[in-house]
Structure formats: structure tokens, C-alpha cells
């Protein structure tokens, strides 16, 4: 707030800057006020959402008396049965399996594309590839889901003589969805590697490939990991696109080609039909709480990677 220039070349301006100005003062105060209110609002919103989901989600265990371990570990999901069984393990497994599958497919592709874009053909990369990838980020997830339902599911059905709605279809759709995120974040990380490092490596006689593999990738590793975790966080929370291609059965899958459910698809399919305050509805809130906790975990991983990256430099 009290920034002053040390070069009083023009005394008029200097005087103007040194004497207190009421208008500037009010501007400063209101500006600070607006920024503070925005920040406070943000914190309040985040805290109240967390509190709301936690209070709804925890009432499954404390009000309806369902045991947490049974909730997490049982494989049978039959909330309308007599007696009702709330086992969300198939959903949890489904969420983790599709996310992992998507990351396994998208990470090498995304980092590979980033290397191509930054190291191999920077001109083409900047002029063509980058805009294309930015375009992909903007495509709504329902479009990915619909394309998956129309093209991918019949393709898998014909290739493998199975149903088509499968873990594999879900993983592929998600991989496509998170590919742009991974590529653009990894590209930023790779282009942040100082040119000196590359020059030094080449001067030592390393080939271009050795330089990329041992020097560039190595020093941009934290950034690339961040890219993958960001992609996984998006994949884990995605509901619509996955729901359309994954089949949504609560049976445990025997292979990649079997249908499965995810936490998100379980919630979206049932939320509107259940009555607020019933154990069924609360169980869905508990699943939402699990998703929230998982996103906290992803953010924490990002933080840890960020800090490690700092130490390495």
C-alpha cells in the first residue's frame, strides 16, 4: 500500500504521490474490502458444503445405525430389500478401477504428446496441437458419453463378442476426457525446464533422445505427476459420461469387459427417486462424502508433489 518511487525527478508528481489523497485512500479500502469479502465468501461456501455433505453422509452411520465397516466392505447393494443391505464396495472398486485404467491409458499418451509439442516440433505444437487440445478441454462430458455410447460400446461389442457396456469402455472414455488436461499441464512442466540443462546434456555428447529421457523428463517429473493426478481427480468425479457407457451393475466385475458401477453413477441414478431422510438417501450422501474425501486426498497429493518439486530444485 505504501509504495513510493525513489526517483523524485519530477517534484510535482513526487509531491502528489507523497501527500495523502482521499480518493486513493477510499479506493484502497474498498478494494481491500471487496477482495476480503470474496475470500471470506469462498471459505464459507467451501466449509458449509463440506459440513452439509458430512452431516448428511455421517447420519447413515450415526442415525440409521449402519456399521461403517459393513458399508465399506460389503459387496451387496440392496437398499430396497428386506432387510436392506448397503454395501458400497462395488461402487468404490468401480470408481478406482476406471480411474486407474483411464490414467494408465492417458498418462503415457499425454506426456508423449507434450514431449512432441515442446521438444520435437515446437512450431507445429504451438500453432496446431495446443489449440486442438484446448478445444478438447471444452467439450462437455455428456458429449464424450454420447460418443462413447454410440461408437465405442458397439465397437467393443463386435470386437470381443460381449455386451459392450464395460469397465474398458468407461476407462477409454475417461482417458479421452482427461488426455487434454494431462497433455497441457505436462507441456507446461516440460517447457519450464531451463534450456541450459538441455544444452549441457547435448554438450556432454548425449543424443536428443537421451537428453529428453534423462534430463527433460527427469527434471519435469513433479509437473508430469501433477498432470496425472489432476487428470485422475477429474476422472474420479466424472458422472455422466461414465454412467452412459459403464452399464451400472453392482455385481463385481470378472474382467475388463464386464459392466460395473461407480460412486458417481450410483448417486446420479438414484438420488431423484429416493426420499430425503431415509437410510437409502443418506447412504447416497455417504457415497458423496466418500467422493469429497477422495478429492481432498487428490489435492493433498498435489500439494505433496508440489513441495517435493520445490526441494529438488
Amino acid at each position, binding site marked *: 500500500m505504501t509504495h513510493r518511487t525513489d526517483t523524485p525527478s519530477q517534484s510535482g508528481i513526487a509531491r502528489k504521490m507523497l501527500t495523502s489523497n482521499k480518493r486513493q485512500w477510499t479506493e484502497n479500502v474498498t478494494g481491500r474490502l471487496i477482495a476480503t469479502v*470474496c475470500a471470506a*465468501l*469462498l471459505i464459507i*461456501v*467451501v466449509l458449509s*458444503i463440506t459440513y452439509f455433505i458430512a452431516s448428511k453422509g455421517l447420519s447413515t452411520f450415526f442415525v440409521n445405525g449402519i456399521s461403517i465397516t459393513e458399508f465399506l466392505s460389503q459387496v451387496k447393494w*440392496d*437398499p*430396497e*430389500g428386506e432387510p436392506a443391505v448397503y454395501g458400497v464396495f462395488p461402487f468404490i472398486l468401480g470408481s478406482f478401477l476406471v480411474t486407474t485404467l483411464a490414467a494408465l491409458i492417458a498418462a503415457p499418451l499425454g506426456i508423449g504428446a507434450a514431449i512432441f509439442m515442446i521438444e520435437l516440433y515446437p512450431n507445429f505444437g504451438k500453432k496446431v496441437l495446443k489449440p486442438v487440445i484446448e478445444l478438447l478441454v471444452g467439450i462437455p462430458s455428456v458429449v464424450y458419453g454420447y460418443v462413447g*455410447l454410440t461408437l465405442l*460400446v*458397439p465397437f467393443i*461389442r463386435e470386437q470381443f463378442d460381449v*455386451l*459392450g*457396456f464395460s469397465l474398458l469402455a468407461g476407462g477409454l472414455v475417461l482417458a479421452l476426457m482427461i488426455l487434454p488436461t494431462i497433455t497441457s499441464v505436462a507441456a507446461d512442466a516440460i517447457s*519450464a525446464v531451463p534450456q541450459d540443462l538441455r544444452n549441457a546434456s547435448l554438450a556432454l555428447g548425449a543424443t536428443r533422445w537421451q537428453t529428453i529421457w534423462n534430463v527433460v523428463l527427469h527434471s519435469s517429473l513433479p*509437473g508430469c505427476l*501433477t498432470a496425472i493426478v489432476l487428470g485422475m481427480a477429474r476422472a474420479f468425479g466424472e458422472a455422466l459420461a461414465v*454412467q*452412459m457407457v459403464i*452399464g*451400472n*451393475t*453392482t*455385481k463385481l466385475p470378472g474382467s475388463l469387459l464386464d*459392466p460395473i*458401477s461407480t460412486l458417481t453413477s450410483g448417486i*446420479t*441414478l*438414484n*438420488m*431423484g*427417486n*429416493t*426420499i*430425503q*431422510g*431415509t437410510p*437409502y*438417501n443418506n447412504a447416497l450422501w455417504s457415497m458423496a462424502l466418500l467422493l469429497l474425501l477422495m478429492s481432498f486426498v487428490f*489435492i493433498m497429493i*498435489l500439494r505433496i508433489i*508440489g*513441495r517435493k*518439486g*520445490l526441494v529438488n530444485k
Partner: protein
Amino acid sequence: MKKLSKMFMALTVVGALLAGCGSNAATPSQPQQQSGGTQTPAPESNSGNAGAETTSNEPITAVGSTAMQPLVEQVAKDFMAKNPGLQIQVQGGGSGTGLSQVSSGAATIGNSDIFAEEKKDIPANELVDHKVAVVGMAAVVNPQIGIDNLSKQQLIDIFSGKITNWKEVGGPDTKVTLVNRPKSSGTRATFSKFALDGTEEAEGITEDSSGTVRKIIAETPGAIGYLALSYINDSVKALKLDGVEANGENIATNQYPVWAYQHMYTKGEPTGSAKAFLEYILTDEVQKTAVKDLGFLPITEMKVDRAADGTIKQK
């Protein structure tokens, strides 16, 4: 350091966006209610309840079943055209949402495709049922199966997973693929109660939207599921049940038993504009046009009455 602050900034932006979404989602209901409340008094409603009190112009919110939404929206549009100044807001959200919103007083009318008595934890005795239409449902199969009739027992065996190949019921050598609704769905409840005699369905693909179910059945060889009659078109084949076709005549006499009422529940007897609206839906004008056009069956043409427990009485 730079990287850390960059990341923090990114997180902040994401957070701000999220917060924006949250507050946006919360606001829309307010302005509408306000605009309805501050509206100038409208000319007298022409639905007959003259001497309308001040409450008659209170905005109506009808929330619930997405299957009923097109019908209620259409009728609300017509009714608002006849009663300028009246606000009727129609929302989806599912039958469960409709029932819980109306019993908590958050909505004037709760749309549901099942009886309130069928949902646990709903104070059904506080709610007044207004049956406004009937919807028929049929088992539908992929047209390549080439079957157009199944007996009830065959249907039960297929949906409970006993029959797994179409050749067992006279079709081609194709595996049966079940396309279900979520366990909480009203359509699933109706179908399982009246077509499967309450038999528990085996696990299958589960989808919520009727459009998606139809698409899947049309594209997957050997697929079978169930749809409301209004959703059935040439891409799928509707099956006869024990030789009885699912059409208006057979449903009116209950010869074809797989149908459900479309309910509009109010908390206590409706008053003012809500009462006029519910009366309007039952007029021949609506029943013969909008109801039929949107694929429902007029409640006025039903020759039988079904109670919440499923017992049938001749009218």
C-alpha cells in the same frame, strides 16, 4: 516458489468457479417466487371458483416425476395462458423428490408415478391423491429377436435370470441382456409388481433415462427391458403379455395389467389456484388432447379402479 503460487492460484480459481456454481444453483427459485408474489392481481380465473381469495394467485410449484414432466408442463402452459398473472413452475427431480417436497411443504404439488403409500417414510395420510392420467408399460426387445409374445412365466424367468438364451423361448440362439432401471425407480417398481409378480430382477445394465434405455435395446442384440408406451417407437419391439397387446383398450379394462397412475399429490385438500389447476387437468379438454398427445391414457376412460395395494375394482 513460483510454481507453488501458480498452483495456489489455479486452485483458487477452481474454488471460485465452484462457489459460483453453488450460489447460482441456489438462486433461481427465488426470483420466480418473488415475481409471482409481487404480481398485480390477475383477472378472475375462468375455472369457476369465483370469489377467489387472495391465495388464488399464489404461484404453484409442481415437482417430481420426470416421466410426468412433459404432461404437467404442457397443461401448465395452457392453464397459464388462460389465467394471466398465475405462475406455475414445473420441475423434475424424480418421484421421490416430488413426494418428499410436497410432504415437507416445499412444493404445492408433488408429481409421482407411484402411490405415496409405496414409499417408506412418506406420511401418506397427510397427502391427498389426484390421479390425473394413466401410463402403460410394456416389455420391449431388440427387433432382431423376432418374438412378439411372451407368457408371464417366461417373462419372469427371463428377468430373474433363469432363462439366459432366447432359443429357450423360441427365438434365435442369442444371449439375453437385461436392461434395468435403478432400484429406486417408479417404472421398475410398477413393472416388477404387475408384470413379474414382484419377482426380484437379476443384475443387468442399469440406466435411468427412457431415451437411453430405448437406444440400448435398439442397438444391443438380445436386449430386453421395459418402457412406458409413450417412448416406444419402431426401433424396438413391444411384446404382448400372455397374448394381450399393451394398448389403451386393454389397459382401460385391466386385461393388460402393467400400467400405473400418474399422481399429483397435495398436502391436505388443495385450495385456490392449485385446486383450479388440478380440476383443469381432469377436464375433457385436457384429457382428450394433451394427455393423449403425450402418450398417456386419459384417466376418464379407465373402466377400473386400482387401490394402492393393487386390488382392482370395476368402476
